[in-house]
């Protein structure tokens, strides 16, 4: 009897498992409309304007956005593609090439050609990021732009002219020394500029300004031991030769986000910050008296800024390619981007040049003009697209070793260069192997 009960129970569990495994998905209402699954890496609280407006103006397509947490997005998207149930559209910020090389995206070339889609509406730094090998895989939706922020009040207190921010990195160094304040124990209370604080690496901007060519044209060779990059690192060495790295680290450790940000809390007088900061300052310290200027450069060189793109793409195996393309074209239109920019706070910059240069957009914020101008001279932080994460990990590691005086700029960069090159070689070899084994559509 016991045996029979055991068998029956085992069968029941097995059937239940089977039913669970093969249970059909919950079906959307059968109203003949196409439902686009749109996965966005975003912490959105409400639907973005380009979605609501598309849904309002398109009767037969409904876009259903789903926010993805930053930490999990790659795993979620890759798993969905692998299980052949991907979303119809993704909105991402990590390098397009990294996704394209994994065959995670659908090439858009045939659609671009068929519809004679005009790619010159985008800033060139952004459009070049959308390409991998011979194909275009995405459309840039937003970008960001960096400029030089300075605190006018702290300038005045230090006896500096608040209408004359530094134009060269040498001047930044000089101004910095005027802007330092310490407490009675010798701890920093205020600093002028810190090259290793902030979410953009000023050293790479300096290297670009000096003409650094980090990746060869064919994308196969990395060079970090070039003179411009070494020069940029030397600037940081020169900066830290005046201070104890431990004192600066203690000072930086006191900062956080929002009100606790170094510039917003008026503890750092000069920083390279992105276009979201005018809004953040309004929100967290509206009395902050600041100016925005071009990023400083070295004498005789033109300023360069950094930009990244948030892009839209169709994952491999997506079921509604045509409708997804329709939505992508809609979202990057001048008027849609303009209204979106007017409505949202903590702006992401439009990718569409026509929007960015539109007087209505420029008047949204008095510093927008500087950001737009700098976007024209921007380079992308996707320096080595195929091994983006490895590049930045090694680059930051090299910088850390240099400012801690463990290695010279050349030795630190040489070590980083070697590791990045090994990873790049392997990635290219693997990519060639996969392409030789499967036919790429």
């Amino acid at each position, binding site marked *: 009897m016991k045996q029979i009960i055991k068998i029956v129970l085992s069968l029941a569990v097995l059937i239940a*498992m089977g039913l669970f495994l093969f249970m059909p998905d919950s079906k959307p209402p059968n109203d003949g409309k196409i439902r686009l699954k749109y996965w966005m890496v975003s912490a959105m609280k409400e639907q973005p304007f380009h979605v609501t407006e598309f849904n309002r103006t398109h009767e037969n397509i409904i876009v259903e956005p789903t926010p993805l947490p930053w930490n999990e997005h790659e795993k979620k998207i890759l798993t969905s593609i692998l299980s052949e149930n991907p979303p119809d559209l993704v909105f991402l910020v990590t390098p397009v090439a990294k996704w394209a090389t*994994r065959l995670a995206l659908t090439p858009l070339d045939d659609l671009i050609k068929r519809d004679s889609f005009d790619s010159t509406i985008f800033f060139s730094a952004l459009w070049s990021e959308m390409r991998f090998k011979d194909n275009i895989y995405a459309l840039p939706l937003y970008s960001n732009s960096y400029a030089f922020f300075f605190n006018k009040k702290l300038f005045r207190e230090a006896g500096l002219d608040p209408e004359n921010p530094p134009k060269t990195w040498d001047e930044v160094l000089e101004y910095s020394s005027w802007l330092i304040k310490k407490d009675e124990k010798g701890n920093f209370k205020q600093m002028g500029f810190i090259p290793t604080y902030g979410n953009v690496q000023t050293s790479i901007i300096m290297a670009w300004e000096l003409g650094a060519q980090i990746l060869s044209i064919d994308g196969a060779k990395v060079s970090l031991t070039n003179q411009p990059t070494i020069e940029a690192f030397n600037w940081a060495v020169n900066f830290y030769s005046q201070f104890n790295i431990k004192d600066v*680290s203690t000072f930086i*450790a006191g900062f956080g986000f929002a009100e606790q940000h170094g510039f917003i809390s008026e503890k750092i007088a000069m920083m390279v910050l992105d276009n979201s900061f005018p809004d953040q300052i309004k929100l967290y310290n509206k009395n902050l008296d600041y100016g925005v200027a071009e990023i400083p450069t070295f004498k005789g060189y033109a300023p360069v800024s950094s930009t990244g793109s948030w892009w839209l793409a169709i994952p491999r195996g997506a079921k509604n390619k045509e409708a997804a393309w329709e939505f992508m074209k809609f979202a990057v239109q001048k008027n849609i981007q303009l209204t979106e920019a007017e409505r949202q706070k903590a702006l992401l910059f439009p990718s569409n040049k026509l929007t960015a240069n539109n007087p209505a957009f420029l008047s949204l914020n008095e510093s927008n003009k500087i950001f737009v101008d700098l976007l024209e001279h921007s380079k992308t932080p996707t320096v080595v697209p195929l091994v983006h*994460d490895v590049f930045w990990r090694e680059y930051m590691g090299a910088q*850390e070793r240099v400012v*801690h005086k463990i290695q010279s700029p050349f030795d630190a960069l040489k070590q980083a260069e070697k590791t990045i090159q090994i990873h790049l070689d392997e990635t290219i070899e*693997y990519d060639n192997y996969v392409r030789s084994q499967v036919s790429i559509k």
Partner: protein
Amino acid sequence: MMPWFIGFIIFGLYPMIMSIYYSLCRYDVLRIPQFIGFGNYEKLIFEDPYFWISISNTLVYTVLRVPLCIIGSLLLAVLVNNAVRGVKFFRTIYFIPSIVTGVVLSVVWLWMFNPQFGLINSFLAYMGIPGPLWLLDPNWSKPSMVLMSVWSIGGGRMLVFLAALQGVPKHLYEAVDIDGGGWWAKFKNITIPMLSPVIFLWSVLEIIFSLQVFVEAYIMTQGGPLNSTMFYNLYLYNKAFNDFEMGYASALAWLLLVISLIITVIQFRLSKRWVHYDGVTK
């Protein structure tokens, strides 16, 4: 048995076998694997500096942490084994911190270790001692994380020690009393030998746990500063889920198993010299 067996094959055995295969391949989940033989293992051992950095960090952490945790828990158990008024209250108080999860703990300690506003440095400053940079100083980052684990010495380990202590026959202590021995003689000659199987059990478990340290470094330092907290599992995670080098990460995982096995076998061999079962060394 059957449902368990099916579950084990699908979710346990199959992934394990596949991970052995993938450890011999280049594989990024989305594309077909490229078989490269022992290439990943060779690269790990002979070419990858981070592998050795992560091994050394993890071993230093283990060597610092395991004795501290075991001695701490044992001493605390001896303390709360005394039949004094309110001892149950203290046992509860000591146990409570251990129920906090790793992520919450890490966030709390991140603030405690803040060199400028942190509780620890504020206290040290009050005493006139300049505090270190803790997690921001490569020399202090690992000791800081070891210090964090003091938080949980009153947890499960202490309870097991307490239970073992209460199982030590009273007449053994009485024999020491008759011989004129004091508390140290009792602790050294009775308590430690009688508790040696439990101490051994915890040393095996704690070494394995320490080799797998991850959450603290993932939340608090991401391996920095200067790779001083780049522990083995954090490196493995970065390879698997940041770089999507699943083949390489699989090789790392299997090497960790081998390392853990070797250490455990050595421990078992050594245990014959000092672990007493029912008063007898086996």
